[in-house]
C-alpha cells in the first residue's frame, strides 16, 4: 500500500499541478479578493484522485514537515487536532489530506511571506487513517504522513 501511494505521489504531472494551483489561488498568496475554492480537489473521492487533481506532483517524503500537537489516537473522530509545521525554506502552502475520509482533502492553507509555515486546526475523521501533510515550497512538493487511530468512546450509544 505504502509503495503504491508513493508511486501515485510521484506520478502526478508537475505541469497539471501548476495549472491547478494557479486556479486554486495557491500561487497568489495575499490576494484576498481572488477568493476561490478548488472544487475538483475537494470533491475527489480517493487520496490518489485528490493528489492527481491537485498535484502533489513529484512530492518527496520530507522529515522537515512535522506534526505537532497531533495525537496518535483520537478519543473522538469528530474533532481531531492537527498541527503541521514545515521548516522547508520558502514554504508557500500546506494542505491536509485524510486518506480514508469520503473526501480526502480537508484543507489548504496559503502561507504568504512573513507568515510562519505552521498551522493548527481540527478535522473530522470517519475512521482510523493516514493523514498527509502536503507542502509546497519554492515550486516543489513535499509530503509527510502519520497514522491517527480513531477510537470508539463512551457508553457507545
Amino acid at each position, binding site marked *: 500500500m505504502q509503495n503504491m501511494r508513493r508511486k501515485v505521489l510521484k506520478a502526478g504531472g508537475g505541469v497539471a499541478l501548476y495549472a491547478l494551483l494557479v486556479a486554486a489561488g495557491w500561487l497568489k498568496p495575499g490576494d484576498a479578493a481572488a477568493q476561490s475554492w478548488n472544487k475538483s480537489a475537494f470533491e475527489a473521492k480517493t487520496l490518489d484522485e485528490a493528489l492527481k487533481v491537485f498535484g502533489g506532483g513529484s512530492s518527496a517524503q520530507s522529515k522537515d514537515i512535522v506534526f505537532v500537537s497531533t495525537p496518535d*489516537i483520537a478519543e473522538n473522530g469528530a474533532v481531531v487536532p492537527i498541527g503541521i509545521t514545515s521548516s522547508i525554506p520558502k514554504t508557500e502552502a500546506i494542505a491536509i489530506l485524510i486518506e480514508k475520509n469520503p473526501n480526502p482533502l480537508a484543507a489548504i492553507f496559503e502561507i504568504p511571506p512573513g507568515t510562519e509555515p505552521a498551522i493548527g486546526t481540527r478535522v473530522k475523521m470517519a475512521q482510523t487513517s493516514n493523514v498527509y501533510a502536503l507542502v509546497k515550497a519554492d515550486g516543489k512538493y513535499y509530503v509527510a504522513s502519520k497514522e491517527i*487511530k480513531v*477510537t*470508539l*468512546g*463512551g*457508553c*457507545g*450509544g
Partner: protein
Amino acid sequence: MQRLPIARIAAAGATVAAAVLATILGCATAPSDDDINAKAAAVLRASFKEQGQAKLDRLAQDDTQKTCSQYSGKAVPKDAAERIEKANLASIKWPADGNYLGDWKNGERIAQEGRGMQYSDDPKGPVGANCYACHRLSPQELSFGTIGPSLYQFGKVRGYTDEVRKYAYGKIYNAEAYSACTNMPRFGHSGILSQQQIRDVVALLMDPESPVNK
C-alpha cells in the same frame, strides 16, 4: 462482584461521615432513612416521563434491584445475597438442545454494539451487549473498559469444556445468579439478548478460533 477492602472501608467511612454530619446538624428533627427512601421513590416517579420505548415501568424495581440499591456501595449481607442468587439462578432458561456455542463473529458484533433499549434507540434497531464498555476481550480492540474483569483468553485459560460453556451462558443470561449485586446486566433474564445472541457471545469467549483465545 468482589469489592476491594479499601472500597469497603471508604464506603464505611462515608457512612460514618454522614452519620456525624446528621448529628451535628441536629438529627432529632431529621427524617428517618425509611422516610427518605419513601420520599426518594415518590420524587423519582414524578421526575421522569416516558420517552420512546422507555416507559415509566422501568422505575419499578424487582427484589434484586431494590435490595441491591439498599446495599449499593456496601457489603451485601449473606442471606440477602443467597436469596438473590437463588431466585436468579432459577430464572435462567437453558437451551433445550444443550448447545451453548454460536458464531463468535456475530458475538464480536454484539460485544461492540452499544445501542439497544435506550429511549433514543429505534425499537427495531440493533441491540448489543456492549461488552467492551466494561471488559477486555479481543486484543485487537484497544478501547475497552475496566468495570468488569479482563476476559481475554477466557476459554483458553479455563479450558474448552461443556462446564465452562454452560457457566458462560448462565453468567450472560443472568449474572445475578452467580454474584449478587454485580454491576453486570441480566442480558437473558431482562430480554436484552435472545438465546442465539447469548450463544454467539459465548462463542466469542469459548470458541478456540475466536480472537479472544488467540
